[in-house]
């Protein structure tokens, strides 16, 4: 009795993996086969029958299984080129920041205060434009489940980050090794965020998908910045001369990401101006990279999860003349 119930449970799982149009008939057919096995007392065969169906690959419609070669190349191109494009957006925004800074230096007393907002604003703007371009391309990319999509988005970002960090280390830049844990944490947390966004979009909950994807990506970036700062700057340190201590109070940790983007404490007592200086001196490029990549990562996951457009209805068949 238990075996049969377990087998029936497995079959219910299995039947959900098939196209909706086939489910009712397959459920009926498999129940008949299970009955046959139960009648002959073949309990293990019953379990094998049901478990094999439950563990087999999900069946999609034959139309969905045919992936044109061009679509594969387009998918690979979009996913591989987007991270370097995000990096280019970051560099372009930094160049804009430098030009703006030079222009403002003679016109504004505290021109340095707008450096980070200009950089972050430019990066965000270009990141959104990149996301729009990626979404357009995503309409003609391969549709796969949410987890492979998330991995397909995040792994090229990881590869790009690895190349940049490797080149930086090769040039002997300081602090590269200390950057790695934060970047790894960001990538590790970005995968579930993009995965969840894709999974929700697949169920038609597009608005929730966006919300979860963006919030998840923000949490990932925030945690990554916090990890880098905590690993590099102590919470307390002795004061030297008249300068404040080289320490950052952990109480404001959730704000550090936004501090890196805006150079602001948002009217709160922490982080102090000195703490902001320490934080942005230690971690500033990574938050911009996170900002450049996040819009397209979430946008691709949501766009790729949408059902393909139904083909235009063809002409109705006309009855042959009698």
């Amino acid at each position: 009795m238990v075996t049969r119930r377990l087998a029936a449970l497995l079959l219910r799982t299995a039947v959900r993996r098939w196209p909706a149009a086939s489910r009712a008939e397959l459920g009926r057919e498999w129940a008949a086969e299970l009955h046959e096995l139960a009648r002959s007392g073949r309990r293990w065969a019953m379990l094998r029958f049901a478990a094999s169906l439950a563990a087999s690959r999900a069946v999609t419609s034959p139309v969905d299984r045919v992936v044109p070669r061009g679509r594969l190349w387009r998918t690979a191109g979009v996913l591989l080129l987007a991270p370097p494009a995000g990096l280019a957006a970051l560099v372009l925004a930094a160049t804009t920041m430098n030009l703006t800074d030079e222009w403002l230096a003679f016109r504004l007393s505290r021109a340095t205060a707008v450096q980070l907002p200009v950089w972050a604003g430019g990066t965000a703007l270009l990141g959104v434009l990149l996301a729009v371009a990626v979404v357009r391309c995503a309409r003609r990319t391969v549709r796969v489940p949410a987890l492979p999509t998330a991995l397909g988005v995040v792994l090229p970002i990881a590869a790009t980050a690895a190349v940049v960090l490797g080149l930086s280390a090769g040039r002997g830049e300081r602090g590269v090794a200390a950057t790695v844990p934060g970047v790894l944490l960001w990538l590790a947390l970005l995968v579930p965020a993009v995965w969840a966004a894709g999974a929700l979009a697949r169920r038609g909950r597009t608005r929730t998908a966006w919300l979860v994807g963006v919030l998840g990506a923000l949490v990932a970036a925030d945690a990554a910045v916090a990890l880098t700062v905590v690993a590099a700057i102590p919470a307390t340190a002795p004061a030297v001369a008249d300068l404040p201590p080289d320490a950052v109070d952990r109480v404001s940790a959730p704000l550090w990401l936004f501090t890196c983007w805006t150079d602001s404490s948002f009217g709160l007592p922490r982080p102090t101006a000195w703490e902001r200086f320490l934080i942005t001196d230690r971690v500033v490029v990574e938050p911009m990279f996170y900002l450049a990549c996040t819009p397209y990562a979430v946008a691709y996951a949501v766009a790729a999860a949408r059902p393909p457009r139904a083909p235009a209805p063809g002409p109705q068949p006309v009855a042959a003349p009698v």
Partner: protein
Amino acid sequence: MVRLTIPVVKVLSALLTAPDEPRYGLDLMRLTGLPSGTLYPVLHRLRAAGWLAADWEDVDPVAAGRPARRYYRLTGDGIRAARLALAELRVPAPGQRPRAGDVGPAGAPAW
């Protein structure tokens, strides 16, 4: 067009042993040695390609003491296509004996 994998070839071979005889799932599992998780996707693909037809058994479940089964059989197109495909793969289709003077299929085998 159906992509000819080994499970597909096994199912086609089994069905071609008696093309007019309808088979149900467990029957085909026994004939092919394929697990259910492999067999049913193959049947699905063959049906989608029009090579296979499926019909419910016309039986009264109460009188028979069991639910009706679904039977599969090759369609006319399916029989022709399956024989051709198996011949091209150099798999001798059951029930088909090579005749004297027959020339083998051209080209290299697909595996």
